[in-house]
């Protein structure tokens, strides 16, 4: 996926804090969480786009055409840059 120009130069926030419907760009630090490798392999790679489909615990995010159910504890470890345009 191409990186869109909506990426703001703001500080990253945890994925778990995004409101429903918000889009964001993932910013992975290597080994950010125990299942980092798996998340990567499931499509949630560095700089990929995510959209929050459901908030709460567990939450649902969409990455490309994959929907992932994540516990909020895990989402708290994933840093994202929220899209300004989507908010």
């Amino acid at each position, binding site marked *: 996926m191409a990186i869109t120009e909506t990426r703001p130069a703001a500080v990253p926030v945890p994925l778990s804090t995004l409101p429903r419907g918000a889009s964001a760009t993932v910013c992975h630090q290597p080994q950010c969480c125990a299942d980092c490798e798996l998340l*990567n392999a499931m499509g949630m790679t560095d700089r990929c786009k995510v959209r929050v489909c459901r908030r709460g615990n567990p939450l649902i995010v969409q990455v490309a055409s*994959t929907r992932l159910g994540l516990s909020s504890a895990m989402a708290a470890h994933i840093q994202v840059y929220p899209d300004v345009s989507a908010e």
Partner: protein
Amino acid sequence: MTANATKPADAPSAAEILPSRFRYALLGNPNTGKTTLFNRLCGVRSKTANFPGSTVEARIGVIPRRDITFEIVDLPGHYGLNLDRPESSFCKQFLSGEYAHAPTPDAVLVVADATNLSRNLLLVSQAIQQGLPAVVALNMTDLAQRRGLTIDTDKLSEVIGCPVVPISARTGDGIDELLRVMRTPILSSAALPNPTDVQETSNWAEQIVPLCVGGDDAVGSANDSVTDRLDAAFTHPVLGIVVFAAIMTGLFYTIFSLATVPMDLIELTFAHVGQWIGNLLPAGAINDMLVDGVLAGIAGTVVFLPQIVLLFFMLSVLEDTGYLARAAFVMDKLLRRFGLPGQAFVPLLSAHACAIPAIMSTRLIPGHNDRLATIFVAPFLSCSARVPVYVLMIGILFTDQPLVAGIAFTGCYVLGALAALVTSLVFRRTILRGPSTPMILELPTYKLPSIRTALLTTYDRSLVFLRKAGTVIVAICIVLWWMGEYPRVDAPPEVATMRAEAEQLAHEQPETAAQLLVQADEVEAQNAKAKSFVGRIGHIAEPVFEPLGYDWQLTVGVLSSLLAREVFVSTMAVIVTGEEDGEDEAVRERIVAAKRDDGGLLFTTATSASLLVYYVLAMQCLPTLAVTRRETGSWKWAGAQLVYMTGLAYVLAMLTFYVLRWSGVS
């Protein structure tokens, strides 16, 4: 979409001359349609194979062609060959030939989802770098087309250095072409990213996708609003649970109501076959063994086949729609309170048919302790083998009170589920401590279920079940039958007296005479039972079960069903009447009226309630213990399961008995 697959001109072909049997490993991400493709290619020419020493189950099938036979192994779906997960490491070993119990495949058939190419390319690039010639099947092209995606397979094939065939496993499009291309898999010599570097690979994939895919592949495609709305309902904290409860109630209602007709038919058939064999062979030990041992054993198991068939069919349909993943999502919160992960939900659900497939399906649970806890508690859930015992006991407890009986039936299921949850809670706080793995669960897109897949899955599962009935259970029944029949003893003198009396009365009072003869038979059978190995064991073990309110006859019933619960009903029938077939109404009445040696009623209210509690909780199933051992890799867990479950059953059954007695119920 390009119609034909192409093969890069300069790439070396690995198989100019194919051997007569060519082995393909079927590899791909979860939910890419591997099994659907496998079923389309192999149909019923397949079998489930357990790979020894691994926690993985895969299906092997064959495709006979004119000049060649393809052998296909449907490997479990996974997200990458280098991940620290059981499926991943198994697939890696399998491809590299390090796995000792199966030959190295000759080539790999990678299934990729055309609607999610960027993610699927990660595994594709890893798979074609395993040193094996490969073919890529680009599946779900029907969906991709509907979403307006166009994929240039020639271009993709050129970039990855392997043939790429667009197919739809669902509709069958492209399958002939795939079979043609499968004759010439190619070992890729293209420049590919380092397979161990996920980031590099995903960067590579992101560069390729725009080259090969046209149309809308961005976040927020047309389908999303429907999926969003369905997800909002199915995963809603309140509505989600309501929908879930409704679906499960419907599921069980259908199983129990639809299954009764075929179950009655099966019982009837076996009764006839038994009679037929009984008349055909000369009376004697062989005849008895065949009819009372082998046939009774098979009948007692096969009777549950309709329920199992229905359960697996409906589970497969539900899974295919994508709903089950949402149910697991909803249940995650509840199960997690008790220390179980959401993924435990499907195994625990299928444990209501039989704990064996349930324990096998815990392989999908990633965390080690999570998986152990699920295996440990799964047999608490009321499997269909308990149903005959419930029917008998509840029938005795609540005669002519159908509503209360229904509630009691539900109560048994609830008691089992509660025991499972509480046990898990206790274990996760003590010996299985440690963080439970946080949930990462892919929620597949909603799809119309494939009846073909459901039928094949059901067929496969039923065969596994029947194989168990044909082996373990028959063996148990033969041994039990033998221990119940031997050593043979002479009839007590009173039997001869009764028979002589009957002979005298034969002319004047034929009815009384007939009654006397029946009584004589019963006394003889009871005496033989009491003096048999089983009876002797019953008398020895009686003190153990006395606190639960059981006499020696019930003790024999419990002991004989140690290996398989459903045996209890037929054992009781044999003991109290000297006649097989506890399902027969008249026999059931006689069980209800059976007496103890002291003349009191055998099944008092307190005893029946205590038996019911005992059978809900006790681990009375050898095959389950064997599967626990295999899945956990040690007898330790199987032993713990036996001791814990039966111990809990014993204590709670005793409590039930005494509380009822103290409160004046005898």
